[in-house]
């Protein structure tokens, strides 16, 4: 196990920058976000959680596939090269690390492999970062409901826990171990620190955010049973504006649209995030739209995450990070909706 003073985090950032691309939280006008770091001093670990989820490290909002010229032959179209070297994704909270595992199901786990996701995942070393177990959880969070601890190292390559003014590092995977051994800016941790680290991981499992008992099979069945109960969905969606904030900030929303975008003669075929909350998401070429009403769209979002996903893949497609609730312009809260559904 290794350690460094949080004050000296820029030394580590500088070392990582020499080895490859560093993506880490930086403070921006509207909050913290994961960004590609150009100056080691930008890295700022003084955050609760980022505004946008770290999914964009593997699944950016816009991903260019092919560039073409409208006036030239299609044979002259060029595939966009990813040119990936090693990437270090630094400071990811345990619930967000969990989201990568869920997203892997869609992008590489079902037989159809998305090369963009897969290449980025393989190129990336994840530095997980425990929530501070001594500070209360944000009121919107509910990751403990979904069985995620405040300091779960699983899924990270290297896991970090803050101890006073120091940051402790423990390798979780062989990839993490190799990297950790090569970092000269880190010092060896003491016995006490190793003990603290292990204790925090354990105590993090009993750290409480908002909590309700969610049995995956029960909730999946329940939502299926009340799918046609329009009064319920009408009631829970009456405030919903049907904007896309919740899906865009969500670490496990993965819907996208493939667009050909052309400016003058220069075109690009790209993947762009889409959202089931948008009216045109389900608009068919015939002009028919099977989901014209707000309740139908919100119902789709909730049922996809908490019912269909369980049926198909056995797990809930939500990690309880609370971003959708925190950023909703009208305070719609997925946790309360699921809780109400269970009482129906």
């Amino acid at each position, binding site marked *: 196990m290794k350690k460094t003073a949080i004050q000296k985090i820029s030394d580590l950032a500088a070392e990582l920058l020499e080895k490859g691309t560093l993506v880490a939280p930086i403070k921006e006008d509207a909050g913290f976000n994961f960004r590609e770091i150009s100056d080691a001093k930008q890295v700022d670990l003084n955050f609760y959680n980022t505004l946008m989820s770290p999914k964009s490290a593997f699944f950016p909002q816009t991903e260019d596939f092919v560039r073409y010229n409208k006036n030239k032959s299609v044979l002259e179209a060029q595939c966009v090269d990813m040119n990936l070297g090693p990437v270090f994704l630094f400071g990811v909270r345990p619930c967000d690390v969990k989201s990568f595992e869920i997203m892997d199901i869609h992008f590489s786990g079902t037989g159809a492999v998305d090369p963009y996701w897969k290449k980025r995942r393989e190129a990336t070393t994840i530095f997980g970062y425990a929530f501070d177990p001594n500070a209360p959880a944000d009121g919107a969070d509910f990751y403990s409901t979904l069985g995620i601890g405040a300091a779960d190292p699983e899924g990270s390559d290297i896991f970090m826990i803050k101890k006073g003014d120091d940051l402790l590092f423990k390798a979780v995977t062989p990839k993490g171990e190799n990297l950790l051994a090569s970092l000269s800016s880190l010092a060896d941790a003491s016995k006490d620190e190793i003990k603290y680290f292990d204790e925090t991981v354990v105590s993090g499992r009993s750290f409480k955010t908002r909590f309700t008992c969610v049995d995956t099979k029960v909730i999946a069945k329940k939502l299926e049973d009340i799918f046609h109960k329009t009064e319920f969905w009408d009631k829970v969606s009456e405030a919903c*504006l049907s*904007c896309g*904030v919740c899906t865009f900030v969500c670490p496990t929303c993965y819907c996208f649209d493939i667009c050909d975008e052309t400016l003058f003669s220069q075109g690009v075929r790209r993947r762009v995030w889409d959202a089931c909350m948008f009216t*045109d998401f389900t608009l068919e070429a015939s002009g028919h739209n099977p989901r014209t009403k707000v309740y139908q769209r919100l119902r789709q979002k909730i049922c996809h995450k908490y019912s269909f996903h369980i049926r198909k893949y056995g797990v809930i497609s939500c990690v309880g990070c609370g971003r959708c609730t925190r950023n909703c312009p009208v305070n719609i809260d997925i946790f*309360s909706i699921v809780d109400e559904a269970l009482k129906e």
Partner: protein
Amino acid sequence: MSINFKKIEDSLKAEAKKLLEEGKVSIVLAYKKGYDDKHPMPYVARKISDVENIVFNEYCTANMARYLVRYPRGTKIAIAVKASDSRAVIQLIQEDKVKREDLIVLGIPVYGMKNFKTGKTIDSKTTCGIYNPVLYDVLLGEEVHGQPVVPPYGVLIEYEKIDKDARWAFWEKEFDRCIRCYACRKACPMCYCDPCFIDQNKPKWGEKSPESHGNLMYHLTRFHHLAGRCIDCGECSRACPVDIPLYLFHKKVAKECEEMFGQAAGMSIEDKPVLVNFRVDDSDKILE
């Protein structure tokens, strides 16, 4: 004088109960408790038993006028409005989206509202800065007097000092953050177009990806679609997850409209929307 939120909440409940009991309205648009007290939500009370869920506190910032166009024409609606929300109601009446006779407006004079995302008091400079509803049938609480007068366009003084190039650079930088979640248009009471131009794909007016030219197309068009219609509630800016100061541009356009046509949006149900109304004495400044 400070605002007695509890008293307003009680009168809002009493009025909602009375209106539903007497059958004068079929729905009451108000607020209810969200996942905690500091995060209330827009609420639709339909039954007398729903009334007890109604709350009103300093975090009830949502502009309920946004929901009016959701209900079939002729639905009898009671709506709780703060000052700028009442202007949205007026503007919607002017635009014939709702009928005055279908509405019972429950006016709430208030100041010192707080942004539930930050917990901070909303700067009056980012909203229309008035405290008393312009239109109401029932006033809940007492009219506010003696609060500092905030000129609606005061915040533009600094903005207008910036030269054209720097202003362009400013907006390019701001729009660069836009993630195209469309929370701004969805929170806006005046954005009711179906479909919105940006959702159309034949013709396609703007790109879907959140990049500079598509973002510019979306925001500049929306700003201009709201010319003379924006009632300055500031909901778009508060809804924005990346804090783009949309109110600045809306205020700038509103100011120019007011200077040219002598009329601010949503101040009287007798007015016609400025860009729909033709008067021989209209300003020709726009053509100069």
